[in-house]
C-alpha cells in the first residue's frame, strides 16, 4: 500500500521532470528554458540540458536503490536488519565519483563563462539604464536616447478592477511603447546601469541577465542571429512596479535598422521644434491626460488621489490648485523630490507643459491655468 502510493508519487514527479526536457518540443507550453537566438544563449541552453540530464540520471540511480531497499528491506517482509554501519571503500567511492562528475560539468561551464566575458570588438554599444519603473536606452554610437515604458493597453488592463479581458491584449505586461531596435548579426555590447535602485535587465532569448546598479557599469554582449521580437522583464525587485517594466527587443536586418535610426532622429528634431510654439488648452489637456496615465498615475493614481502615507494626492492639493504652488509644481516635475523622480530629462517642454496643465484642471482642480512649453523652458 505504502510502496504503491510512493511509487505513484515518484512516477508523477519523474513525469513532470521528463516534461521539462520535452519542453523544447512543446515550446508553447513554456516548460523549459528557451534556446534563444544568440551564440551564448545556445551554449547556455546546452549546458542547462547537460546538467539537467546529469542530475536526473544521478537522481534516478540513487533513488532506485533507495526504493528497491524500501520495497525489499521491510520488516513486514521479514527482513532482518544487518549490523554494518561503515564501509571505507564505499565512502571513498561515493566521494570520488561526484568529484569527477563535478569536474566534468565545470569544464564546459568555465569555457562558456570565458566566452561570455569577451565583450571587446563590438560593432556597437547600447547603454541600458534602469529607472523606477522604466528603461532608458542610449545608442552610444548613433546618438539616440529614449525611454521605454509599459504599453498603454497593458497599463490600463493591469489596474485593479479594470475588468479588461487580459487575453484581448497583445503580450499583456510584455509590451512597451517604444521597443529597442537592434540589427541582427552584429556584435552588440550592452552596458547596464541604473539611476535609483538596483534593477536587472533580462531577455531570456538573449541568454543572460545582468544587474543594473546605480554608480556601476556592467557589460555583456550579444549577436542576434534571427530577426524577431524578444521579450523580457526586470528581474531584480525594484519597488512597487517591479513587475511592470518589461523589455522588448526588436531585431531587424541592418538596412531596416539604419532606416529606423534615421526616422527616430527626425522625430526627435520635430519634438524639439514643438517646444517653441504655444498650444491650446484642449491640446494640452488631451496630451496631458495620456502622459499622466503613462508616467504619473502609477503613484498618484488615475484620479489623482495618491496612496495615503506613500504617494501624496494631487486632486485638491495646494501645489496643484493655488497660484503660489505653480512654480513648485513645475519644479517638482522637472527635478523631483524624495521618492518623486525628476522627469526633466525624459519629457520635453511640451510634454511637461501638458502634464502640468492637465493636473491643474483635472479631477476638480479647476484652476483654469494653461502652462505653455516656454514656461517650462524658463523654469529648467
Amino acid at each position: 500500500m505504502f510502496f504503491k502510493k510512493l511509487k505513484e508519487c515518484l512516477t508523477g514527479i519523474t513525469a513532470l521532470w521528463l516534461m521539462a526536457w520535452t519542453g523544447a518540443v512543446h515550446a508553447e507550453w513554456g516548460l523549459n528554458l528557451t534556446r534563444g537566438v544568440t551564440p551564448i544563449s545556445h551554449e547556455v541552453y546546452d549546458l542547462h540540458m547537460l546538467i539537467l540530464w546529469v542530475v536526473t540520471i544521478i537522481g534516478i540511480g540513487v533513488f532506485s536503490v533507495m526504493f528497491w531497499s524500501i520495497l525489499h528491506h521491510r520488516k513486514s517482509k521479514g527482513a532482518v536488519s544487518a549490523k554494518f554501519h561503515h564501509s571505507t571503500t564505499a565512502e571513498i567511492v561515493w566521494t570520488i565519483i561526484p568529484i569527477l562528475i563535478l569536474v566534468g560539468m565545470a569544464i564546459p561551464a568555465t569555457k562558456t563563462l570565458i566566452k561570455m566575458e569577451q565583450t571587446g570588438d563590438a560593432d556597437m554599444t547600447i547603454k541600458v539604464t534602469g529607472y523606477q519603473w522604466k528603461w532608458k536606452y542610449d545608442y552610444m554610437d548613433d546618438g539616440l536616447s529614449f525611454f521605454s515604458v509599459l504599453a498603454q493597453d497593458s497599463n490600463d488592463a493591469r489596474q485593479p478592477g479594470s475588468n479588461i479581458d487580459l487575453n484581448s491584449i497583445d503580450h499583456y505586461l510584455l509590451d512597451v511603447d517604444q521597443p529597442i531596435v537592434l540589427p541582427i548579426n552584429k556584435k552588440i555590447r550592452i552596458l547596464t546601469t541604473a539611476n535609483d535602485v538596483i534593477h536587472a535587465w533580462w531577455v531570456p532569448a538573449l541568454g543572460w541577465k545582468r544587474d543594473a546598479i546605480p554608480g556601476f557599469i556592467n557589460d555583456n554582449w550579444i549577436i542576434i542571429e534571427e530577426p524577431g521580437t524578444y521579450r523580457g522583464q526586470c528581474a531584480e525587485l525594484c519597488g512597487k512596479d517591479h513587475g511592470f517594466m518589461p523589455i522588448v527587443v526588436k531585431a531587424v536586418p541592418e538596412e531596416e535598422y539604419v532606416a529606423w535610426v534615421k526616422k527616430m532622429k527626425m522625430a526627435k528634431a520635430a519634438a524639439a521644434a514643438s517646444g517653441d510654439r504655444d498650444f491650446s488648452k484642449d491640446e494640452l489637456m488631451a496630451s496631458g491626460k495620456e502622459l499622466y496615465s503613462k508616467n504619473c498615475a502609477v503613484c498618484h493614481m488615475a484620479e489623482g488621489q495618491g496612496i495615503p502615507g506613500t504617494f501624496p494626492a494631487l486632486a485638491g492639493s495646494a501645489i496643484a490648485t493655488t497660484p503660489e504652488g505653480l512654480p513648485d509644481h513645475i519644479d517638482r516635475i522637472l527635478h523631483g523630490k524624495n521618492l518623486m523622480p525628476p522627469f526633466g530629462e525624459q519629457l520635453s517642454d511640451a510634454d511637461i507643459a501638458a502634464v502640468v496643465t492637465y493636473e491643474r484642471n483635472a479631477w476638480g482642480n479647476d484652476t483654469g491655468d494653461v502652462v505653455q512649453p516656454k514656461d517650462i523652458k524658463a523654469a529648467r
Partner: protein
Amino acid sequence: MRTETKLTILAIAMFGFGYALVPLYDVFCEITGLNGKTGTIANTEAAQLEVDQERLVTVEFDTNVNSELPWSFLAQAHKMKVHPGELTDAVFVIENNSDQPVVAQAVPSVAPAQASLFFNKTECFCFTQQMLAPRERKEMTVRFVVDPELPKKISTLTLSYTYFKVPGSDRVVLDPGVVDEERI
C-alpha cells in the same frame, strides 16, 4: 574562562568583523577588481610604463547624471583608441543647469570589471566634491594609462562616470565658504 564568556566574546568580535568587512572589501576589490573601481598611480610611475605600439585598445567614455542632480555631463569624445602604456587625456564637460549652486561628485566604474585592475589614472576628478555656481560650465580632464599587462582578450573597455548630488549638500551650498573649508 567559561564557555559562554568565550562565545560572547566571539559574537562581539564577529559584530566587529562585520564592520571590518568594509575596509577588507575595499582591499579585496583593489586586488581583484571586484567592484570595477579604477586604480590611481603617480605620474612618474606612469611615465615608466612601456608603450605597446603594436596594440590598440578601444576606450569608451560613458557619462551618467543621477536624476536628482540638475547637471549635464558629457564626454568630448565618446570613444578613443589608445596604445597600452600611453598617457592619454580625456576631456569631460559638466554644466549646472539650475539657478542654485550645487555640490556633486563623480563615481567611476570600469567595464569589464576585470579591466579595472589595468586601468590607471594619474589625474581624476572622481570622488572629489565639485561645486558649480548657477549655470556654470566646466571642463574636467582625466589623464589615464592602460596597463600594458591588460589581458590580450580585452580589447574594449568602458570608463563610466556617474555624477551624484552630494547627500546633505543643500545646507552647505547656501554658504560656499563653508564648502571650501569643511568639505574640500
